[in-house]
């Protein structure tokens, strides 16, 4: 009897072991689709419109400026107040809180250097141009156009850091110093690359044919990934290593911010882009070839842009809720429920809709969440920045 029990126990343990090591069948098309979400991390990015992008002195100055509240009007708010390292470079709030509560969520800064459009509405066409906006916005840091220049000239350590980064002492041109402040901020933000996640190990193993390593990836995540690249078609917009096209879409989130007032999203963003003197068609673009301004030169403002918002990347997504541009969905489960039940009437699609109610079962929803959570990893602790000019 004991022998029989032992045999049954061994078989049961063995069965569990086999289940834990199982690899689903992946077709060549699926392997190709999974492979397109890597490798990770990508090579460091360098922005040709920003002469201090990728330079150690520019990055160091940018990190100090990022944490500097004296850039704000009341001397109390820095970039780091809303973009917190311990909260995935966001704030964990449904809506950003500057001097007042804003209408949109603070976007995470992970992998922001790889984008081409910035902000939920893409009103910024460079990371440095986007970084100017909160410095000036009365609802956010409210620094005013001369604040950055006055600060760089008056603080000895920052003046020294500026000279190291830009090759000359801070001058008297406040607009130039505002732009340079933003370029240093951008140089720092572009270094924020999310860590490798369990998905990346699976992706690399699957692509290289290492079935044993690939089988360590949880079955629920495998099933969720199959849905993501298959039936649910999530990868039409959440594509590539960063899981975003970097473009814009309307996924049926209500656009009323309060009674009688709407957030027009990309439509308004394109208007602000055209009116922005700091866009890439302006004099502060350091790229003499003009090649990096092609998107700005050719983008067209269309009625369909109304209610569109930037497709966010999905790395670290399980750690960086609430979700959507307005923080209206609290959890990943809520996000999946939205895509499962979204009303097609709201989306006004003439052709095959990109977003449609997926009608997911409870198990399919859980599988998608399991996959999305496999894009999360614990970031390394950041050391304090070295002094600017020791």
């Amino acid at each position: 009897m004991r022998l029989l029990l032992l045999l049954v126990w061994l078989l049961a343990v063995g069965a569990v072991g086999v289940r834990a090591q199982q690899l689903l069948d992946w077709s060549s098309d699926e392997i190709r689709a999974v492979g397109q979400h890597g490798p990770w991390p990508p090579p460091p990015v360098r922005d040709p419109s920003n002469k201090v992008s990728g330079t150690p002195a520019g990055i160091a100055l940018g990190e100090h400026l990022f944490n500097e509240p004296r850039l704000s009007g009341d001397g109390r708010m820095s970039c780091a107040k809303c973009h917190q390292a311990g909260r995935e470079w966001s704030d964990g709030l449904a809506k950003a809180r500057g001097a007042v509560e804003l209408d949109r969520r603070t976007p995470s800064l992970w992998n922001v250097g790889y984008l081409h459009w910035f902000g939920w509405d893409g009103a910024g066409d460079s990371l440095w141009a986007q970084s100017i906006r909160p410095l000036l916005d009365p609802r956010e840091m409210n620094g005013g156009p001369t604040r950055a220049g006055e600060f760089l000239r008056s603080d000895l350590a920052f003046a020294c850091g500026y000279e190291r980064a830009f090759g000359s002492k801070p001058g008297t041109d406040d607009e130039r110093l505002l732009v340079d402040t933003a370029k240093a901020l951008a140089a720092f933000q572009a270094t924020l690359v999310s860590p490798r996640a369990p998905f990346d190990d699976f992706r690399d193993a699957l692509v290289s044919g290492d079935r044993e390593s690939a089988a360590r990836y949880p079955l629920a995540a495998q099933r969720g990934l199959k849905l993501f690249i298959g039936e649910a078609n999530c990868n039409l917009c959440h594509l590539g290593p960063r899981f975003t096209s970097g473009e814009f879409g309307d996924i049926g989130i209500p656009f009323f911010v309060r009674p009688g007032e709407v957030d027009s999203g990309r439509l308004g963003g394109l208007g602000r882009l055209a009116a922005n003197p700091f866009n890439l068609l302006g004099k502060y673009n350091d790229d003499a070839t003009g090649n990096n301004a092609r998107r700005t030169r050719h983008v067209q403002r269309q009625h369909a842009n109304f209610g569109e918002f930037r497709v966010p990347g999905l790395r670290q997504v399980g750690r960086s809720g609430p979700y959507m541009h307005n923080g209206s969905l609290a959890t990943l489960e809520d996000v999946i429920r939205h895509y499962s039940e979204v009303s097609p009437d709201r989306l006004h699609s003439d052709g095959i809709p990109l977003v449609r109610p997926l009608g997911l079962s409870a198990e399919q929803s859980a599988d998608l969440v399991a996959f999305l959570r496999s894009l999360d990893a614990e970031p390394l602790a950041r050391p304090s920045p070295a002094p600017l000019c020791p």
Partner: protein
Amino acid sequence: MRLAAALLGTLLATPAWADCALDLGRGTGWVVFSEHYLMAFRPDPLRIEVGEPFALILNVCTRNGGAAELLAVDANMPEHRHGMNYRATIVAKGDGRFRAEGFLFHMPGRWEITFDVRAGDDSERLTHDIILK
């Protein structure tokens, strides 16, 4: 494939067609033709990537050897009934050669490129499909 090659060979055997340069440098690219027009084009850079800007280099010819004009070039996804988020602009390079700048395909799938060409009063729309994976 053989049929297309034979058809193209027949077209090129006609003297006026033979004057139409199909080699756009770094390989021919794609050829599109109708009863009245023959057009060769290729992307620059050669490989189109989702989300990355590219240009088209084009050579437009007419059956009778007359000058042809490229009026407009655009792209859309017929299944989803949406176009690009960008508008291409055309620069004439002379002798029926053109460069259209400002393309960006923001999604994988079937993109239909449309070319509006004209010679005199006769205009026509040519199309070509690209499947982007």
